[in-house]
């Protein structure tokens, strides 16, 4: 496979995967157990989810490591197994990819406010992200994928940590815009784009988000601020609502809706497109048909 950066530059658009957690729940992940803690004993369902996305047309899959920092893992008593869990998750993803899809090392937020708003210092955050990034890179990811960030400082810390662990690793970075067009910490798409430009990550954009419209607005603003940067759009499958009879949450965007937005994202400079919460292989298949 060609290097992910040259694919990013020369196309075609990279189709990314969709939601992991909800798919694992359907496959038996017990309520309250973290996917990262579960995968050590249950590699097959995780591999199956990756494979389902690849079969649907994904060219890039995210390792099951969204909550793979020490800070998140310690809730399950797994803080001392950061390296092992992240390595294993990447191995599973690479087995599924079998050289036919890129494996992105997923890094999610710490779930803590950084100082001065919270007790966690910037330096501590850098260290925690570096630890995870080191394990992901050692295990052979094609790119580090920092996502669902709201705080500019936490994003900076994650990028600094990634660079500290692996100075030459490619980095993709996305924020979640879910409140009045900004992140819940108040970061504007333009401000996000300018910061990420200055930090020279390889691609950036928006994931998760409140609605498809809001993610589209954010991508448009980022494109305006950084017209030459390959952008990423990995939105939720619309908005969640409750299916009272089934007693489950359903997301309201159909695969065709996601495909329609995927076309718009491409027009706005997106070169990596996938799904986040509520998306499944049907959504990804529709996106793949729309953009390739």
């Amino acid at each position: 496979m060609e290097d992910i950066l040259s694919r990013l530059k020369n196309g075609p658009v990279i189709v990314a995967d969709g939601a992991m957690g909800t798919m694992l729940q359907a496959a038996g992940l017990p309520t309250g157990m973290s996917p990262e803690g579960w995968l050590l004993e249950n590699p097959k369902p995780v591999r199956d989810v990756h494979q389902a996305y690849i079969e649907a047309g994904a060219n890039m899959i995210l390792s099951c490591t969204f909550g793979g920092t020490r800070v998140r893992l310690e809730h399950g008593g797994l803080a001392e197994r950061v390296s092992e869990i992240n390595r294993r998750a990447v191995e599973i993803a690479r087995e599924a990819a079998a050289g036919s899809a890129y494996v992105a090392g997923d890094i999610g937020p710490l779930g803590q406010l950084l100082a001065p708003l919270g007790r966690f210092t910037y330096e501590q955050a850098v260290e925690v992200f570096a630890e995870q990034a080191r394990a992901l890179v050692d295990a052979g990811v094609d790119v580090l994928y920092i996502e669902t960030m709201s705080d500019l400082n936490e994003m900076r810390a994650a990028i600094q940590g990634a660079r500290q662990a692996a100075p030459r690793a490619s980095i993709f970075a996305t924020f979640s815009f879910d409140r009045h067009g900004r992140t819940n910490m108040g970061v504007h798409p333009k401000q996000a784009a300018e910061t990420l430009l200055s930090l020279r990550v390889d691609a950036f954009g928006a994931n998760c988000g409140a609605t498809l419209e809001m993610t589209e607005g954010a991508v448009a603003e980022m494109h305006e601020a950084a017209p030459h940067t390959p952008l990423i759009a990995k939105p939720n499958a619309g908005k969640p609502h409750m299916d009272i009879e089934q007693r489950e949450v359903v997301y309201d965007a159909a695969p065709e809706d996601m495909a329609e937005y995927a076309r718009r994202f491409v027009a706005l400079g997106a070169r990596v497109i996938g799904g986040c919460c509520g998306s499944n292989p049907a959504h990804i298949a529709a996106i793949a048909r729309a953009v390739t």
Partner: protein
Amino acid sequence: MSEILKQLQEVVIVGEADQAQELAAQALEADIAPLTVIEDALNPGMEIVGDRYECGDYFIPDLVMAAEAMKAAMRVLDPALTARQEQRHVLGTVVIGTIEGDIHEIGKSLVGTMLSAAGFQVHDLGVDVPPVEFVKQVQETEANVVGISALLTTTMLNQEAVIEALEEAGLREQVKVIIGGAPTGPEWAQTIGADAYAENANEAVERVKELLGV
């Protein structure tokens, strides 16, 4: 309203903790009663903060900073209240926590911060809280309200278990239940028999006030 109180309200709104503390002290020196400081400067200031959050001028950092400024002022006012054998009017007692199996913390803590700032007594049980812990805390604190946060489509199902546990313990009549968290919503609140749903920390304060009629 005195100039000092106007300034105090303003520094709470913009989240300047040091200045808030200083101005609260000045207000006391000017012989303004501590309760007056709270009711005329701090409370209306926090209401304006809530309004600004609601309309998208303010975001999480602004809420946190404003609440910190309010707390800083209270550090000066609390001893003054004690000295006068007065108490800040407590609007109600609220037990909050993130449901068992869920470790999302930021939203729930923000709800606690805003409820405290609004004048509620808040008992924050933290994250990954089993239903029995909510029940125990309600019994111990004689709370009027239970707030349950869930950020995952799976863990939200456990919100119902808290309500059932409150019923089994014979406490359901004495407490109002409010839920929140990204995948939840008003329909879900209705389905599981919660009394209210709040989309964010500011709304949580509004809903809890409504539930208790305060």
